[in-house]
């Protein structure tokens, strides 16, 4: 009997341990999936602003491309209709109104928006992209940086 009890104990403990191992592995797997999802989200988020910026640069408004409109900014500020076009394109990308966004060429702000609930300067945002753009020839700089910052 004593031997039977010992076997029974071992069996119970073994089953409990197997269940524990399975639960642990399941937990670990879940943890793995969770972190993986977070990673993918980070990759996606870090790239989203760049995708928007590149898409914006390749758009065309009336006879000029957005690229030209932005690169002419140093000597010819964009017209109201151009700004309106850029804003509507950005809203289209964002799908819903962001807390803030700012599009700037170097230190010059081309367009920006801030929600009443947002108090920051929309500069050091989670979503940000920067790309070099060629500007018409001048003696100061041939390439400027275009920045897109926004906060969802």
């Amino acid at each position, binding site marked *: 009997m004593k031997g039977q009890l*010992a076997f029974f*104990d*071992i069996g119970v*403990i*073994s089953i409990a*341990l197997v269940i*524990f*191992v399975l639960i*642990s*592995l399941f937990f*670990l*797997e879940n*943890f*793995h999936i969770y*972190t*993986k999802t977070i*990673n*993918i989200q*980070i*990759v996606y988020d*870090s*790239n989203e602003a*760049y*995708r928007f*910026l*590149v898409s914006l*640069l*390749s758009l065309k408004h009336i006879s000029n491309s957005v*690229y*030209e409109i932005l*690169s*002419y900014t*140093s*000597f*010819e500020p964009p017209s109201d209709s151009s700004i309106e076009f850029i804003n509507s394109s950005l809203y289209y990308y964002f799908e819903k109104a962001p807390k803030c966004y700012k599009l700037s060429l170097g230190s010059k702000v081309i367009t920006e928006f801030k929600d009443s609930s947002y108090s920051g300067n929309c500069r050091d945002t989670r979503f940000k*992209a920067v*790309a*070099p*753009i*060629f*500007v*018409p*020839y*001048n*003696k100061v*700089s*041939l*390439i400027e*940086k*275009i920045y897109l910052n926004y906060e969802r």
Partner: protein
Amino acid sequence: MKGIFVGTVLLLAILALVISGAFFVVLSSEYINLKISLKASEILIASDVVEAVKIGLEKAYNYSFFQAAYDIGKAGGYENELLMLPWRMYSDKNFPDYVENLKKKTENYIHEYFSNPELEKFEFSEPNVEIEFSHDEGGNLRSVIMLVNFGQPFKYHGNFFTIYETPNRTLFLPTEYFGMYDYGFEKFVNKDSIREKIEEAVEKITTNCGEILVEICENEISQTKIDPEEKLNEKCPNVDNVLESMTIDKIKELETSNVMLSIEEIIVKHEVKEEYNIIKDNADCGCEIIDWLPVEATACADFCESNGYEYSKVEDSQCYCGNCQKHYDKHIIKYEYSYFVAANVRVNITTEGLYPVYDPLEGNTNLRKLALIFNVITSNDYSWNPL
């Protein structure tokens, strides 16, 4: 009991090993995943930056061409303004190889764009620019394309990867820019339109002031001093000044909304040539020899006149009547005036469209018309080269 205890400890040990092993695998896997994610993110961002540069390549080529076209046009198609020569020096023609100069300059500007420190992660090889023209059946310029080729693909150097992309592009160039050269060549080199206008002005002045006839009798020559310049000034006062302003007006007729002409220097001169013609024994001039006949008359003059004589005189109480045997000769002097005009004209042809270019004199970039500026030095007589 001892066996059960040992078995349980063994099981727990195995279990602990399995769990810690699983944790180790999962955690190291998470670490690797995190690294992969960060690298993936870097690659994605890099590919977007490369994409932005790719979108901008055509703009950079266009901006380079516009600036080159602006610079070359202002230097009359020559490499720079110091090497500039008049497109025409009387009969000599100096038409520049502007396409070659344009290609070189565009290549230099493209190189300048791509060697900018902002593109430090990018690597571009040397650009090669070709410009190709296509004409319609009538020989008119239909389109101009620029082929920008590089020996190698451009590279983006990431921390652990390199992206390769082709920077080669074909662009359409504004035909109106090249049209300016065609127009300039046809109008001022192939055909010397300014000379034609000078000739028109000279012809007009010659009609009124090209010839003056002076009639003078032989007996008056010694007392009369004829100055052909004075004669010309009497007939056509300030003729050189008149011709100068007439020529300027005529040259200005060549101007259009896109073609401006400024006369930098103009020299006018005239030459006179004399031609003599003598009419012998001209009745208009006085009588040189009188055939006198002595007559008996108390009123000598009345007698001679009533008897049909032209002349009468009384010498030593003797009356003489006479007729002219020979008149003085008449000299007809023809002054022929030839007019010469030489002008140095600056031709400034501009495009209709505006292009973003930098002007070193104004020190800024703005939308400007591209201009073709050159000089033409010509005259109505190519053998006279005063300029």
